[in-house]
């Protein structure tokens, strides 16, 4: 028998399923767990990189940092020997202001999607990045030119026009929920959910994908390729969870989302960390975050030691 789609859910129903709303996320978890003074550690990607490098967590190699308008003149020299690279605002958010260059001849720069930019256009883009157009507070920013991550073959059939990323949300340094975000044509190759990318849940214990969501609606196939997004085992999963915990400890942020990409050769590479990770991860997992966070809050402090975290992760992964 077919079921009729509902137009809304009642608050009591969401509470019963342990769904976390934005207000509660901010008031009960982000504000108490993340000291304001530590925000630059996640908002400034250069600083985040330093934290990662200090703990041996792989990050994309930085080729150059352009800080002043005058430095833009030196840009062609920076990338002469680099056929592929990424331009990224140091304090950007939501993937805004990022240009991925898959090839160039010094005058024309080509993205993986085939769009071409002239050198003057790239220079103008660098200038707008430095002006702070994409920075969080509209302040003057820096442009990072860094290594382009080559997509791992595991994602060949379920990512279109870009590189998927894997988000792990950690609370008190314990991974509580994870998902993989798959670019689509609608998201123009970006792994941003509000632009139409697909999210698939990842089982914390096994690293296997299940379920999926696109534009807050449940799906089970990639909208462009039709490939099933269930049952994909994420390579290097243990290594990835380990890196996420190490980074959360280093950042001293109690509630944090860490974004990884899987490089074809290096494995998990940290892209960025987020002090206010979004809530769509719940829809992808078809499970609420609140119940998992409350479960962790109820544990004694000794349960959070490195040795015992695996038990917590296993317990969380069974929660539905």
């Amino acid at each position, binding site marked *: *028998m077919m079921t*009729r789609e*509902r*137009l*809304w859910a009642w608050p009591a129903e*969401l509470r019963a399923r342990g769904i976390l709303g934005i207000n509660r996320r901010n*008031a009960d978890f982000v504000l*108490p767990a993340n000291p304001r003074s530590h925000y630059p550690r996640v908002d400034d990607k250069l600083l985040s990189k330093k934290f990662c490098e200090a703990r041996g967590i792989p990050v994309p190699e930085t080729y150059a940092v352009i800080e002043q308008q005058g430095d833009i003149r030196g840009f062609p020299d920076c990338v002469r020997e680099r056929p592929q690279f990424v331009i990224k605002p140091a304090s950007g958010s939501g993937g805004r202001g990022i240009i991925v260059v898959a090839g160039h001849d010094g005058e024309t720069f080509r993205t993986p999607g085939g769009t071409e930019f002239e050198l003057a256009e790239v220079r103008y883009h660098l200038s707008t990045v430095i002006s702070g157009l994409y920075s969080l507070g509209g302040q003057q920013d820096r442009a990072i030119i860094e290594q382009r991550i080559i997509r791992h073959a595991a994602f060949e059939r379920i990512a279109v026009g870009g590189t998927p990323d894997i988000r792990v949300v950690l609370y008190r340094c314990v991974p509580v929920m994870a998902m993989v975000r798959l670019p689509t044509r609608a998201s123009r190759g970006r792994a941003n959910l*509000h632009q139409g990318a697909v999210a698939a849940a990842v089982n914390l214990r096994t690293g296997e994908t299940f379920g999926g969501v696109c534009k807050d609606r449940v799906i089970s196939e990639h909208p462009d390729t039709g490939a099933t997004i269930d049952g994909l085992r994420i390579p290097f999963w243990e290594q990835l969870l380990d890196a996420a915990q190490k980074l959360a400890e280093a950042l001293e942020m109690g509630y944090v989302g860490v974004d990884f990409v899987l490089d074809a050769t290096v494995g998990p590479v940290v892209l960025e960390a987020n002090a206010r990770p979004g809530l769509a991860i719940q829809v992808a997992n*078809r499970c609420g975050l609140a119940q998992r966070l409350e479960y962790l809050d109820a544990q004694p402090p000794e349960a959070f030691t490195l040795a015992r975290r695996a038990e917590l992760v296993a317990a969380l992964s069974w929660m539905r």
Partner: protein
Amino acid sequence: MNARRTAPWVAGALALLGVALVGLRAYTRHAHQLASGESLWRLTYTVKFESETAGARLSAAFPFDTAHCRVFRQSVLHPDLQPERLRSPLLATREVDLLTLRPGEQSMTARFDIHLSRRGRFAAFDPELVLSAQARAEWLRSDKLVQADSPIVAETLQAIRRDTPPSGDLVQRLFDYCHHQIAAGEEGAPSDAAGALQKKTASPIGCARALVALCRANKTPARLVTGFVMEENDSLESRVWVEIRLGNRWAPFEPENGFARELPYNYLAVRRDGGEIVCLTRGSGLETHFAALRLPPGPGAGGSKPRSLSGLADLTRLPLEMHEVLSLILLLPLGGLVTAFFRTVVGIRTFGTFTPTLIALSFVFADWRTGVFVFVFVLLAGLVSRAFLDRLKLLMVPRLSTVLTLVVLCIIFCVSLLDMLRLTPSAQAVLLPMVILTMTIERFYLTSEEDGTGFALQLLGGTVVVSLCCYFVLRWGAVGRFLFAFPEAHLVTIAALVLMGRYTGYRLSELLRFRDFGPARKPKEPQP
């Protein structure tokens, strides 16, 4: 104690404190007895006229503050009339010009609540401590009713001078002459200076003009003042007296009743050029009616002592010109409250946090039709020009400044266009927050580029909805008047914001977003 438990207590305490302070002040105001020699009055203007075309101009002078008089509340109702506020620095009076928008019967009602003090305890601002050359020339001028250069004036002045000893007070002699020698005439008696001095009989205004002409001929600046004598009367007549410059101050003289240098405290000055209190150009059938009514002591009367703590919170004691600005500032937190509600409880996203409040605020003080026309036009023109500017690849700050310049030009052009189409624009339409509009255009453009036009339109829709709600709250006049009388009521606003700041329930938008988490409904089985 953690924040979750503390916040409701803090909010409760603030709300209680706010209510208690409002209650206490309202009670003390009602219980307040005016000091001896002080009284409250309501002066009402009722004006009716006919205009055959749009553009007829009604000029009305309003009472202004003096040491003995303070206007603490004012309301002017003028349906179908467009105000053009004017303030003449030369005359230091308060006037308003109202233009008719369409032909037909027109009306205006103005009501002023006035505090009179026999002791003259109000600190009146006197901008005329030093008389400018321009003002001096104006108050020595001869015209067709005050003929300061007429031979009869010169002759009379000469005669009075001859009779005044060198050490005598000539101004006093001139006043005495007018008071004693010019008899109060019947209807038809001369109302100009020369006629009054010639016939030795004149109307009250003729007598006053004679005194002004004599002073001006003596090179002493003098002017006519029109006003009222405040006494309970439902058909009040305007009165005219004279102000003569003595040293660095204007001294009042009233030849009709013989008051010199000091007038009774209930003389209320309204106009300082001898003109009518209400005059009409390009219209007909002007009917004016003035009434004065004594009021019981009540809220807003400014009974508090100027330098006391309660006086600090009593904004009604401030000059009337500041009332409008302060009411506007006091309404802003309510806009913030509405915005916070929509973002925290409803979950509507907008461009910028306070953009909707500022847009709504500008609409409160503009005619909404003009406002909407200008707003939509500026937004569309701004977006088109922003798209064009994108091709020029300008740096951010010069680009934003270019958009700002274009926004300013669009607003000015809109006002001119509306005028050309004879849809007389509201001058306040230009109060639209130009910088906010510029940023909205920039954000709309960038969002549509980065996240798609659908998402940008969704944000714009959210901004419009929240602005609309802010507008309806902000134009609720009773709230503005209440907050102006009791600004401490905003403690309750803070309490509401504290509670909202600790609201951890679901946003309404999340009930839609997470609807898949509710149990799915089963459709009814088809009936056999």
